């Protein structure tokens, strides 16, 4: 099984805190866009099969025909900022998270448990367009947007400190 992750180029001048902030917002953006039925290129996801729509799982999750990669919500909620270094962040799933790596691979390749990828069924959700990334980066760019960037980074710093003190 593949380890599902995506490397994304970010502003080379960004420091570690800026990269972490951008990483979180990129993940938020991917989750929101996926819940709105769009893949990383902005194309609508292929629809659900009839058998899936008739399943008890479908009913339990309260799903509709709108494809949103959300059954229990676990896959989208498991996307993490895996690492970052100068000019680059890597997002995806923990290497040992077999279940969500398998789910993500099934969606991205359109395999869904089969051996052969099926591009017509694929829902390639892990990635972000250059323009969307630029919008996010601008919020944390001290050269272009100093006041807002300082405030947002201060919040992110507090939350990261809080997170590391409770873990």
């Amino acid at each position, binding site marked *: 099984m593949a380890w599902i992750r995506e490397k994304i180029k970010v502003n080379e001048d960004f420091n570690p805190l800026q990269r972490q902030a951008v990483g*979180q917002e990129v*993940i*938020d953006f991917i*989750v929101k866009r996926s819940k709105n039925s769009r893949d990383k290129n902005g194309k609508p996801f292929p629809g659900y099969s009839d058998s899936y729509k008739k399943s*008890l*799982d479908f*009913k*339990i*999750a*309260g799903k509709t025909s709108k494809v949103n990669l959300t*059954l*229990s*919500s*676990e896959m989208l*909620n*498991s996307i*993490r900022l895996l690492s970052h270094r100068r000019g680059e962040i890597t997002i995806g799933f923990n290497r040992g998270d077999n*279940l969500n790596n398998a789910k993500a691979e099934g969606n991205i390749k359109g395999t869904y448990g089969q051996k052969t990828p099926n591009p017509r069924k694929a829902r390639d959700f892990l990635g972000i367009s250059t323009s969307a990334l630029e919008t996010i980066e601008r919020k944390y760019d001290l050269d272009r947007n100093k006041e*807002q960037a*300082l*405030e*947002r980074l*201060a*919040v*992110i710093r*507090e*939350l990261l400190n809080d*997170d590391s003190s409770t873990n």
Partner: protein
Amino acid sequence: MTIQAQIRDIINGKIKKAVTFGLRKQFLNDQAETLKDLIVKRTRLRRGVDQAGNTTTLAGLKRSTINQRTRYRGNLSTFTTPARSNITATGQLLDSFKATSNNNELIVTAKENRRTNLQGKPSTVKHADIIKGLESGNIGRNKTTPRPFFRASNAERNEIARNIRQEILKGLK
């Protein structure tokens, strides 16, 4: 006071306000409700959670349990089947979950409003005892495979943390 210190004070004041906004009672109550719904849905989808917050597949049901559930199929919740192991027979336990918040903590509890058992007879079993039994695998005098489910998974925590972070950032505006 230097200009730098003044700027720092202004930013700190704004952050304090934003945090107060993001942690207001009504919003946290809504998040507790979201968490409750995530736990209920995930459990009905046959997923439990271990102590580390990882999700697990709930252990399957014994043949004798499946037979009993088949016999009383009419009393089963519409969210299960005789062979589905999803902490759902009549559905009263998961339906009883209530959510609230207190002191920045999200609280999900099972209300004690159990009325009937699978046979349709009045039941005195407490939801708290059922949850404890499922966690430990000791239900009354019976030993069963533990089926821990009543806690937030790491993924569920991520969703709540994201919602709160976004709300705090919204409070900066």
